[in-house]
Each structure stands twice: as C-alpha cells, then as structure tokens.
C-alpha cells in the first residue's frame, strides 16, 4: 500500500502545479486589478502606476508566473496585497477554523443524512416513512445555506439567545494549549476553550450540515438500494436471517465502499459550502478569506487559499482510496 500511496502523492505534484497555474492565470484574466480595487474612485494615473510598481504587478506576466512558482516551491506564498501579512501565516490562522467547521458539519450531515438515507431505502414501499424523508431531502437540497443560516441566527441567537451571532471561538487557545502541552496542566482552561469553540461552531455546523445532509441522504439511499438488491442479501434472507441482521451484518458493511466515496465528494462540497457559511456566520476561515481575496483581487491570498483547497481535496481522495482497502479486503493496492 505504501508504494501506491507514494505514487499517488507524486501524481499530486503535477496536479497541484496545474491547479496553481490555472488559478494564477484565472485571477489575472478577471478584469479589474488589485490597485483599482484598492483605490476605487480615487485612483489617479500616477497612483495606479505607483501601486503596480510597489506590488510588482508592472512586471511581464511570464516573469510574475515563474517567480510565483519558484517561490511556491520554497513554500513562500508571498504577502497579502491588501493587508501585507504573509499568506502562509494568514492561511495557518484561517485553516483550523475551516477545518473544524468542515469536520463538524460532516458529522451533522453523516449523523442526519446516512440514517435517513438507509431508512428511506429500506422503507421505500412505505409511503408514510419514505415520502416525508424524501421531502426533507428535497427541502435540504433547495434550501441555500445562507438562508438557513440567517434563519438559525434569528431563532437561536436573537430570540432564544442561546448561541452567539459572530465569531469562531477561542480556537487559538485550543491550538496553543495542544501545542505546548498545557492541555494536561490546565485541563479546565482547555475545556473552557474547547467549549467556546463548540459554542461558536454549533449553528454554522448545523446550517451547513443540514443542507449537506440532504445530499448525503440521497447518496446513502441509492447506495443502500444498490446493496439491498444484491444476490448475497437474497441469500441471507433465504437462510432465514431476520431483517435486522440482514441490514446490520450484511447490507451496512457492504454499503461502506460507496459511503466512503460519498465522504470524498462530500469534503469538496463542504469546502465550497464554507464560503457562504463563514460569511453568514461571520466566522474567520479560508472560505470567507477567499471571497474577500477574490473581490479585492488579492492575488497571492486567493492563490494560497485555492492551493490549500486543492491540497485538501487531493489528500482526502487519497485517504478515501486507501480506506477502500481497509473496509473491503477484496481491494488491494500494489
């Protein structure tokens, strides 16, 4: 399995380079430039020329491109054109917020979506169960996350006042304590910080998780339907096993492979979902950062964010592929 993983990682390098190149040129093909975005209606000819020179944007595109790739190889993603912070530091700060959001909404989506999908597949001949579940899925699919987000904020933050309106919680402390080992010396403080993070995470994870749960339930439903119509299920039933054993022992295990595929796809969908979720819930994170960076034509920041997104998707897909072999012994990698 190791040679396979290494090979996959090697293939990831050109993929990453390709993605980075596409982003580099796509950002520059977009009309409007960072200087104009920064100066708006007060941009004079001299000021624009000054700005371009200061940011190195007056150089030929080819030179900028080679410079960008060469620096990226050395893990130097440059500085944000707007705020001047190093892009890598910026991303390092934003990434954990996006990471916990994706994980938490994945949990919500899985906990809600998978059981619904399975039940709706098993009870597909019972309209009293299947129809409401399918309506739920349809609602989730057609409910945009920003709308559901605002709704949740109005109910749980404004009226019931049980959750905060903005922010990502004290994630810095959590990370710092994990890094320094203080988590063992001050477990109370650590739990408080974790609590604060969860307190801020609940509504965004719920909003994003619920909208994604619909997709997950649809995918889980069709995966279950596929498994349940296989020969070995019929054999199991023919042996006289009860429905419960058929589902838990045979169907569920065999559903894991398609389910893993779903999770792989899901991470990509969830990452794009963070863009809106982080904006509505005013959470720091890569998604919100990416939107701002594209709007401001902050090339290095947008490039950095998309590079990280690409890396996440490559890694998740690799992990999913490797896990296939774990859940299904028939699959081996050489």
């Amino acid at each position, binding site marked *: 399995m190791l040679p396979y993983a290494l090979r996959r990682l090697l293939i990831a390098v050109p993929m990453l380079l390709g993605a980075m190149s596409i982003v580099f040129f796509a950002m520059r093909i977009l009309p409007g430039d960072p200087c104009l975005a920064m100066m708006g209606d007060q941009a004079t000819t001299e000021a624009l020329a000054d700005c371009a020179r*200061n940011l190195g944007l007056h150089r030929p595109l080819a030179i900028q491109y080679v410079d960008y790739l060469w620096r990226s190889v050395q893990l130097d993603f440059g500085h944000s054109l707007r705020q001047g912070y190093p892009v890598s530091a910026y991303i390092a700060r934003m990434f954990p917020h996006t990471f916990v959001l994706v994980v938490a909404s994945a949990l919500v989506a899985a*906990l809600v979506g998978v059981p619904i999908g399975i039940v709706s597949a098993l009870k597909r001949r019972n309209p009293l169960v299947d129809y409401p579940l399918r309506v739920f899925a349809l609602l989730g699919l057609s409910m945009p996350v920003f709308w559901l987000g605002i709704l949740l904020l109005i109910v749980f933050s*404004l009226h019931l006042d*049980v959750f905060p*309106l903005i922010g990502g919680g004290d994630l810095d402390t959590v990370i710092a304590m994990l890094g320094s080992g203080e988590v063992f010396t001050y477990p109370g403080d650590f739990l408080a910080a974790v609590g604060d993070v969860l307190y801020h995470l609940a509504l965004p*994870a719920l909003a994003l998780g619920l909208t994604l749960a619909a997709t997950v339930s649809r995918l889980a439903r069709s995966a279950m339907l596929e498994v349940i119509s296989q020969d070995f299920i019929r054999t199991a039933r023919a042996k006289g096993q009860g429905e419960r054993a058929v589902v838990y022992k045979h169907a569920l295990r065999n559903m894991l492979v398609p389910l893993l595929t779903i999770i792989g796809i899901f991470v990509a969908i969830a990452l794009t979902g963070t863009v809106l979720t982080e904006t509505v819930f*005013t959470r*720091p994170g890569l998604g919100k950062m990416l939107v701002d960076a594209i*709007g401001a034509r902050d090339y290095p920041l947008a490039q950095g964010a998309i590079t990280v997104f690409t890396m996440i998707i490559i890694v998740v897909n690799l992990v999913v592929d490797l896990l296939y072999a774990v859940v299904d012994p028939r699959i081996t990698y050489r």
Partner: protein
Amino acid sequence: MQTIVVLTMLAALGLAALGDPPAAEAQRKKVLNIAAKEPDTLDPHASILGQTQAIVRFVYRGLTRFAIRDGKVTTAEVDPDLAESWTLSPDGTLWTFKLRKGVQFHKGFGELTAEDVKFSFERQMKRAPGTRFGVNLGVIKSIEVIDPHTVQIALKAYDPIFLLRMVGYQQGYIISRKAAEKLGDQFKWNPVGTGPFYFDRHAPREKVVLKAFDRYHAGRPQIDEVHWFDVPEDATKLIGLEKGTFDLLYPEAVTADFADQVKKMGAVIDRRGPGGQERFYINITKKPFDDIRVRKAFMHAIDRKAIKETMYPGDLARLAISVVPPGYFGHVPMEFPEYDPDLARKLLAEAGYPNGFTVKNYFISKSFFYPKVLTLAQEHLRKVGITVEVQVVEHATYHENIRKNLNPFVLYGGTRITDADPWLSLFFDGKEIPDPATGNKGTNFAHYRGIDDLLQAGRVERDQKKRAAIYAEAQKRLQRDLVCLPLVDVPGQWARNPRRVSTPFPPDYGEFSLHYSYNYPELLKIVN
C-alpha cells in the same frame, strides 16, 4: 433527526457553559462594539477604503480639525487641533504652524514634534510605498523645522484650500516618525498616532481592538475599548444591533428596509453630510451623445425624483441640486432638465432618432447603488426609446471599464475635500480625461474641457468671494453644456443603539465629515 439536532445543541450548550462568561468583564469595562468591514491597513496615509478611513480617525489626529459651530460639526471651517495656531505670509505661500505642547504619541513614542509633522507629509510627497494621498500635498515646496514646536511649510503657489488639506483626514494625519522608521513595513499593523485610542491587537477576519489613550491631549475618552468587528453582511449587523452584540453599525448600504428595521428596534441612524453624490456623466465625444439635443433628451427622460424616492425614500437622501454638492465651498444651486418623456422623444426625433437607439454592452458594477440606480434609469430611458443592454460586472471591473471609455454615460459616486476646486478638477478638468492609449485613468468621464480656464483661475485666486464667483460660473457652464446629471446626495449613515451609546451631535446632519465616521469618536459615550 430531531433527537440528534437537540442532542448536538445540548452538548454544545453544556460545553459552552464551561466557557468564561464575558458579561462581568464587560460591565467593568466600557466596550464599544462596532460592526463594519475589516480595514486593509491602519497606516492612515495608505487606504481609501471607507472602513479604513473610519477607523484611523480613532487613532490619529491632524494639525487642524473640522470646526464645531453651534453644536454641529461643519466641513466649511477648521479649528486648531495638533497645531495651536498658524500664520500665513503676505504672499500666501508660507504657512507657519505652532504645535500644541505636550501632545504624546501612543506606546511611549514620546512627544509630538515638528519633525513628526515634516516626516508625515514628506513620506507621502515622496510616494513612500503604499501611500495614496501624496497628490493632495503636491502644492508643498518644502517643509522646515524651525524648532521642536514650530514648522514652516512653503508652498509652490498660493493654495486656497491648504487648511482643509491639514485636517485630520487622509493626507492630514500626523504619525510618529520614530515608530514609522523603527517598524517599517510593520507600521501598517502597529500604528502609532496621537489620537484618543491606541491600537491593541488585530485578529484577521475577526476584529481590531483599540484602547483608550490615557494621555490623549484633550482628555481620556470615556470609552475604555473599541472592538471593531469584521462583519460583511448587513443582515448580520442588524441582528447584532437588536441582540446587543453591536452598538454601532457601519452598513454597506442603507435601504428603506434597513432604516425601517433600525427604527423598529428603537435604534437611530446618524446622518452625516456632505456624503456622496450619485450622478451621470455623459461622454460628449461619443455618438450620439455628442449632440446636445440627445444629452438633453437623456436628462429629460430620467425621473430623478422617482430614483431618489425608490432608492432613498424620505430622509435617506436629498435630491441633488448642483454638480457641486451642498457643504462644499463654492456650491450654488443649479437647474436641470425636468422629467418630461414627451419632450425627450421630441428632442430625439429632432436629433435624427425618431425611434430612439440602442446602447449595447453597457457595463455596470454589481455592487453598492450602481445596479439598482441603473435599472431604474434603464426603464426611464426605455420609455423614450433608448434601449440599454446591460452587463453586470464586478466593481473592480466596472472601474476598469469606465476608464476605458466603454460606457457612453457613466454612473459614479463619491466624496472629496469639501471645496469646489478639487471636486471640479477631478471630474471636469481636461487633464483628467481617461484614455487607454496613454494610460490616463482620470475621472473626467464626460470628456469635458469647458471650464479648464476657470479651474486655472480659481487655483490662484486669494479672494474667497472671487473664488466663489469663479465656481458659480463653472457650475453655470456645466448646466449650459449638459454634461453631468447629479441625482442624489446620500449622507454617510451609521446605525446606533442610543440606549448604549450617545453622541453630542444631533443625529440628522449634526455632523459633516469626510471619512465615513464620527469626527470625534472620543466624544462617544457608553450610557449604561
């Protein structure tokens, strides 16, 4: 599913209870919570973004400030601030400023001296990387430090608006030379000024925290801390105002709906003039608008009152009455063609367009007021036979395209130093005609050259009455040549929870300001 949702929430709640309750701390400290967008820098000379200009006023001061007269702040007069007095030489080119003694910079960077004043202006004049307002100081020839508390500024020629340039706003802010030299590139996020609040910390994409400066020369502010949150969505800001998360909102756009909601929750809107003017420039070099009858038809076709009432019903804005807005020196009321679609059709027929014409590939920004105002105007124009085929683009793209002269008429908004000279110079001086061939990205979108002589005369005239007459004549010519149709004057507007924060100035036009915010944040008070 419900069980899972409820369980998740309960788990989060239970853990949240472990988090430290900030309530006790907040009671002890007077914290002002502001919802706005995040500034791009805290170097006051380096950004034109509204939120940046608004926040730097908390941290920096200038030699002069907008005067408080009869309980209101005016942009037409200045008072001493970091300078306690000044004199002007008889030939009008040498200003001598006496600095207030004992003014301290934040964070132990020492007392304000003439060196800091010289440095603050010279870094902009030399176009230090990132600085944006050097062009506003182009009139300065040299700056000389006479003694630690006296600075002399020699001008190339008399400048009628020099004291306005010295106001704590954009180029006028004084920064600490020591801090800027020591910190270099880091200064933008380690700002050091003499204002009522000093910079404490910045959590990117979350908030900027400012703290009261004990040694502020006019006395420590009542508010202990300012938390400036990065909140992009106006909907979220409103929920936060009602919930009490925020005390002040800097909205992206104040719509009738927004104003209604603010009113319903018992909050107020602070309106500050002169604000921005929204207007159409008509490119007189583009067919068919090179024909004055077509321009007249265009103006008769547009129902300005309808646009004003749809966009900004009631008090939200005022119908524009001149291309130089009220609150600017030199403003005189003008007259514009009244809404009259029949006359517009007749004029078009006379000009050879009995069936109207089509404007293809017309670009409009997707942001701010642009798409809405244009949609209304598009409908008005359609009624007289002028079809506008619109493409909605990103704001940055819009700015690029209008400077490539892709739109035969240009919708534009903005605020400038409150005097007719800089205002008219930017929008009607022949030197500012944008031209992709030469790279000129000026803002004379009308391509007008009809008042160049007046602008030249106004810049050297020292008699204020004669200056006023020159700009009155300029407005008359602009009215005659029909190159610009001003629509509305939109004030700067913030929403405030009056049960939490008070300001000494009346909410409705009690302040005029240029930086999208309160002129005197140190006078804001937490009331409970």
